[in-house]
């Protein structure tokens, strides 16, 4: 029986052959990641173990991004634990405020992850790196501690679901809409414990940023990982960036898939996830005219340069609705700088948006844009659980950057064609 992408990568990272779903294997890990929420617990567990060194100073990556710039004394203390650990153990990849970014945008940008890697991160959206043809999955702090000590992690070999996207994307439809549609279709536990392998002509035509967005949200369907085959776009992205040579795998023609889902993307329009589950997905038309108090554009899902360019294209020369707070978070310092140089940040500020330094901030209700009781936000982030962005009785809708930008102008959830199309006529 043939093998899927995920099976092949795991097999090349362990001492066993012909892996089958359900089997538990110990794999060598190429990159181990922690942030300011999860690393302090991992550091404590690591130090309790009494090990003198991390398994590889180049392969441990620590990014304070959730509550930075430090929102209060408790947050500052967590980051201090990380910073001191990084210095004491000579961890090469620690990223301080001013050089950092949201971890899942930062690691690919810095070339720390490449195709064929096994990556674990003590953050559920670690699955983002599947866009590069890597096996990447979220774990807890205790797992991170074990990997920092041993360089190895246990995995249950997952079954793989294959998702094939045919046809050509409609205007205003992005990777975000494809993944929201998919989660809406299979449900928030539709891929539980499984690998999601994304393929098809619409995927080949999708930008790397669009693929990062899709892989990022595999966890919202319960998946262990989301993964794409390496193609010319992946190679072009990795070239001159990745610190290690890519290892390229392709699934066998007779690979065993537990399920195959097919979508004609020509039939998929802009999508919106209603409160309070990422799987509660409807076409944007069904949300139209829902008033909103806040719009958040950014995060590890949709804070990349192409996202910001698209938003600027819609906001240019317009004003944010007076009843809406629009907060935009470029995901990394490099994205921030490029947006600055391209004049994008000027467009945002002129439109009446607040532009923030990179941080996870409001996505998890941390800081920098918390909702009061009864308030409603539209966000390009990945989760809209009850109280996710603030008060337990506040609401979050999820959408693409284009829908978010159009909605910020009208003060209600809006199809981008309602704004841009109207102007052009």
């Amino acid at each position, binding site marked *: 029986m043939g093998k899927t992408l995920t099976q092949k990568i795991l097999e090349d990272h362990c001492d066993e052959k012909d892996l089958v779903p359900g089997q538990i294997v110990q794999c060598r890990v190429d990159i181990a990641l922690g942030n300011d929420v999860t690393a302090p617990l991992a550091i404590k567990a690591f130090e309790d173990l009494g090990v003198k060194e991390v398994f590889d100073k180049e392969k441990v990556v620590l990014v304070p991004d959730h509550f930075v710039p430090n929102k209060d004394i408790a947050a500052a203390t967590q980051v201090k634990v990380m910073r001191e650990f990084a210095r004491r153990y000579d961890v090469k990849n620690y990223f301080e405020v001013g050089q950092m970014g949201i971890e899942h945008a930062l690691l690919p940008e810095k070339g720390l992850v490449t195709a064929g890697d096994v990556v674990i991160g003590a953050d559920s959206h670690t699955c983002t790196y599947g866009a590069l043809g890597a096996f990447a999955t979220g*774990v*807890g702090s205790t797992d991170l501690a*074990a990997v920092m*000590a*041993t360089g190895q992690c246990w995995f249950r070999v997952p079954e793989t679901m294959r998702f094939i996207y045919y046809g050509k994307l409609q205007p205003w439809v992005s990777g975000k809409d494809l993944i929201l549609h998919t989660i809406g279709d299979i449900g928030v536990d539709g891929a*539980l414990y499984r690998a999601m392998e994304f393929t098809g002509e619409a995927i080949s035509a999708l930008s790397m940023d669009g693929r990062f967005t899709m892989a990022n949200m595999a966890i919202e369907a319960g998946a262990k990982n989301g993964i794409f085959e390496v193609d010319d776009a992946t190679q072009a992205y990795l070239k001159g960036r990745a610190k290690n040579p890519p290892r390229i795998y392709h699934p066998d023609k007779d690979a065993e898939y537990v399920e195959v889902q097919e979508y004609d993307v020509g039939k998929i329009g802009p999508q919106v996830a209603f409160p309070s589950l990422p799987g509660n997905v409807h076409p944007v038309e069904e949300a139209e005219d829902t008033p909103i108090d806040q719009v958040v554009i950014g995060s590890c899902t949709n804070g990349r340069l192409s996202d910001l360019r698209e938003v600027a294209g819609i906001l240019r020369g317009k004003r944010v609705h007076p009843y809406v707070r629009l907060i935009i978070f470029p995901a990394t310092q490099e994205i921030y700088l490029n947006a600055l140089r391209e004049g994008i940040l000027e467009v945002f500020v002129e439109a009446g948006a607040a532009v923030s330094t990179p941080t996870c901030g409001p996505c998890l209700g941390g800081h920098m844009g918390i909702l009061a009781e009864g308030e409603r936000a539209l966000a390009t982030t990945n989760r809209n659980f*009850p*109280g996710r962005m603030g008060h337990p009785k506040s609401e979050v809708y999820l959408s693409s950057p284009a829908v978010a930008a159009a909605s910020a102008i009208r003060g209600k959830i809006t199809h981008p064609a309602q704004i841009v199309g109207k102007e052009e006529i």
Partner: protein
Amino acid sequence: MKFTGRVWVFGDDVDTDQIIPARYLTTSDPEALARHCMEDADPSFPEKVREGDIIVAGRNFGSGSSSEHAPIAIKAAGVACVVAESFARIFFRNAFNMALPIFVCEGLYKKLKDGDIIHVDGDKGEITIEGGGERFTVAPIPPFMQGLIQDGGLMAYVKKRFVSPKVNVG
């Protein structure tokens, strides 16, 4: 592993933000986290939960974040074990790594209300409701994960099998 306790019943898709809201994740102190355990699902839970109580829920318990603050908060609140129709994978993994007993059991939670007493017999793989005759089957735990529990969690497992001169034990 056997537990007898009073149950608190929750529905499907109880995510980690409901178990421990992210606004409290600036600390990992178990007692501080326990004070807000399940707060966004049931604001009165931290006050009414008692040592030895059992959380029973529907599908996909623990979805969302990878943070171990969720199982830490549950353990520190005194909850003996969690029984659900299914668990999100990172929560499932974290629970075993940290030795929080969890059981997958279908068909149970819809038959329970807050305050009922259940008997969980992990060795026999069954759960019964006090005062009722019906037996509910618990899904078997893979041998590797049983080994993790026997070793006392992942760090104990790592100490036993990996920590050797090649990784410079202090």
